[in-house]
């Protein structure tokens, strides 16, 4: 699930190395180009994590300033965009931790429930074959986004990092200061809970 990690064709790698060298030399135009190239995507990431425009913009600004301080030490072993992405994710997570928690729904109510016969109490029904194609519709994409936003925070964050931001299990574990096993369990529960939220809309014949 690494689809959202910024990747670039090799032709731009040389461009990026040149840009990095100019930034490391203190070239104002290079910083300008870097911010303009990456700010939009990084802001989108921060918005997804923080769900608040002001906090998201603050996190992006903080991340860029932190990156610029460290630019002299950045060896370019990863893409500049990937490096900036990780810095903004960490800045957003830090901001999220410092925020007062709001009451949220329990994950338990969104997980499958079983009867004494070990079958699900609400038997799963097939979903529409075209569920994926529905994403071409703005309404369906917004429905999925709203449903993700309803997940309890520790599950929402793991789902965002793993399935949307393209951060791997080990790195997610490091960012959240939990074990890789905890990341895997939370991701599975987050997907199950999201499936429960989407089920009424995608059951065959009911959407």
């Amino acid at each position: 699930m690494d689809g959202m990690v910024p990747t670039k064709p090799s032709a731009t790698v040389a461009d990026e190395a040149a840009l990095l060298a100019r930034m490391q030399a203190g070239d104002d135009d290079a910083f300008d180009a870097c911010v303009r190239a990456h700010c939009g995507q990084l802001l989108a990431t921060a918005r997804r994590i923080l769900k608040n425009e002001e906090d998201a913009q603050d996190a992006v600004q903080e991340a860029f300033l932190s990156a610029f301080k460290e630019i002299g030490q950045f060896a370019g072993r990863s893409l500049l965009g990937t490096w900036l992405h990780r810095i903004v994710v960490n800045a957003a997570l830090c901001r999220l931790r410092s925020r007062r928690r709001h009451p949220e729904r329990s994950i338990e109510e969104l997980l499958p429930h079983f009867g004494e016969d070990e079958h699900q109490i609400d038997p799963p029904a097939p979903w529409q074959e075209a569920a994926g194609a529905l994403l071409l519709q703005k309404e369906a994409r917004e429905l999925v986004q709203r449903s993700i936003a309803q997940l309890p925070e520790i599950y929402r964050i793991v789902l965002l990092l793993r399935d949307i931001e393209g951060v791997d299990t080990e790195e997610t574990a490091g960012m959240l200061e939990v074990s890789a096993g905890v990341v895997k369990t939370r991701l599975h529960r987050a997907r199950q809970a999201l499936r429960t939220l989407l089920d009424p809309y995608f059951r065959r014949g009911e959407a």
Partner: protein
Amino acid sequence: MNCREFTEFLHEYLFGNLPPEERAEFEKHLAECPWCVAYLDSYKKTILLTTDAFSDSGNGAPPAAAPEELIQAILHARPRKS
């Protein structure tokens, strides 16, 4: 294997993390349980919907843009070499 065990460990099955004998148990259960077939299918579609929900390519939208004020604030706050 029952439906509870299937749903609890289906991610391990889906991503090929099970030894062959446990995998065979999952497949035996799937062959007998249309509910778990439906659950597995909807779980896979949930992952697909999640990964595509925020992608720019899905709705023809242009790449995300940042407000000019934010760009300027970042550039002005940048520490400069003395």
